């Protein structure tokens, strides 16, 4: 069995800082997630990983590559192509004291499992007066950007965030992926872990120690004075590109990676927008009832008196996610985000 995803990691550089060792490695998000899962399995004997092709193949995106060989087929295994069964089994395993880490192979495949997620996983702890917690970490390769067919590019965060009892999180880079997954997999509550599949292959520095970098709340990825771009998942890197371009025009943009989509870090949003007094929220999901509306309301609630303009949303459209050829027209691109920023910048009170 190939362990090559882990082994092909570029050399780990362990340097000594003034007082403690710092371990920073350049790796892809695939490798960072793989390493996080490997460590979770090693640290928690109750953790089990399963899903379609998760075992022998190591997952269609290689996230579970080599884990079955290292931890055994009792703890990392394949399931039938039946998402309702995958999540139903997770409920039973959680009741029996396990920490299931199921994978739904693609976002759109979560629909057949919605009943198990909403009616069982999200409310079993509530229903049982706290005697049956559901420590389930559901990994969902999510969002678009890889030219895949229908059901392989959808953004379900607003659906999940709307369900009481679920937590929702999405990492934007390899460092975030490693730390957020390790944190999510130790929670006593169900967490929907939305992996931005278009960012799986992009490499970045992962600081495994990351002391003082709490895996909760939002995170400022770039500081700026004039406007806050709020994003999550794959849109964070695009917003960072936009911020660089805006700097050429003299506009200093702050990029806030929301990270946790339920609960949303209202205090972090408020702190950023109180400073910049302008905000644009960017997401791939359709506009109507998308999470951008929730973000806009939270900002309005906390910053109404100081906002220079209404919060803008730059999002996907209110249509089914299109086939690969039309993807670039659907996902917010650099120009659409810049237009959103311009609308905020030129807003005049009537």
């Amino acid at each position, binding site marked *: 069995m190939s362990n090559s995803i882990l082994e092909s990691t570029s050399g780990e550089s362990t340097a000594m800082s003034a007082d403690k060792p710092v371990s920073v490695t350049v790796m892809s998000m695939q490798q960072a997630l793989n390493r996080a899962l490997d460590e979770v399995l090693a640290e928690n004997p109750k953790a089990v990983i399963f899903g379609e092709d998760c075992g022998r193949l190591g997952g269609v*995106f290689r996230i579970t590559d080599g884990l079955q060989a290292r931890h055994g087929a009792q703890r990392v295994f394949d399931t039938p192509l039946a998402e309702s069964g995958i999540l139903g089994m997770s409920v039973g395993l959680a009741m029996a004291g396990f920490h299931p880490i199921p994978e739904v192979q693609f976002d759109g495949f979560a629909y057949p499992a919605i009943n198990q997620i909403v009616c069982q996983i999200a409310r079993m702890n509530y229903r049982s007066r706290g005697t049956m917690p559901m420590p389930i970490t559901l990994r969902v390769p999510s969002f678009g950007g890889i030219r895949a067919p229908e059901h392989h590019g959808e953004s379900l965060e607003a659906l999940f965030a709307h369900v009481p009892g679920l937590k929702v999180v999405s990492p934007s880079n390899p460092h975030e992926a490693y730390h957020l997954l390790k944190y999510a997999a130790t929670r006593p509550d169900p967490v929907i872990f939305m992996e931005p599949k*278009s960012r799986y292959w992009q490499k970045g520095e992962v600081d495994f120690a990351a002391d003082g970098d709490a895996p909760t709340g939002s995170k400022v990825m770039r500081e700026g004075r004039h406007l806050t771009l709020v994003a999550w998942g794959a849109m964070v890197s695009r917003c960072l*590109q936009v911020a660089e371009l*805006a700097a050429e025009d003299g506009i200093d943009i702050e990029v806030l990676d929301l990270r946790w989509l339920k609960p949303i870090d209202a205090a972090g949003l408020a702190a950023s927008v109180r400073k910049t007094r302008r905000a644009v929220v960017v997401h791939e999901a359709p506009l109507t009832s998308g999470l951008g509306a929730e973000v806009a309301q939270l900002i309005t609630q906390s910053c109404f008196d100081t906002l220079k303009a209404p919060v803008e949303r730059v999002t996907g459209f209110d249509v089914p996610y299109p086939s690969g050829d039309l993807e670039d027209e659907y996902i917010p691109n650099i120009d659409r985000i*810049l237009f959103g920023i311009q609308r905020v910048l030129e807003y005049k009170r009537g």
Partner: protein
Amino acid sequence: MAEISFPLPDLGEGLIEATVLEWLVSPGEQVERNQPLVEVETTKSAVELPSPQAGKVVRIHGGPGDKINVGEPLIVFEVPDNTAGIVGTVPKEEAPKRRVRLSAVLDED
């Protein structure tokens, strides 16, 4: 690199085997998804099997005239580890392009 084996699929209505007529690819060859791999004959008809994926052919099983049972290995592909089994394509990292410029007079009150 990872090896992925493609077994002979059930070619319809519960057929249990097929006879290889002619291989259209050979080991070492890079094939594309849907490229014809092999012509086989069943008790019903002769059919060309399209490739289920892109990859480099590592091994083929059975020569002309050989019978292969449904579910037995037909062909083995080699694919890069980090793209094995992927649906869709790995996005290219491109330098950001823009057509929109920002213009604003910012009052720093």
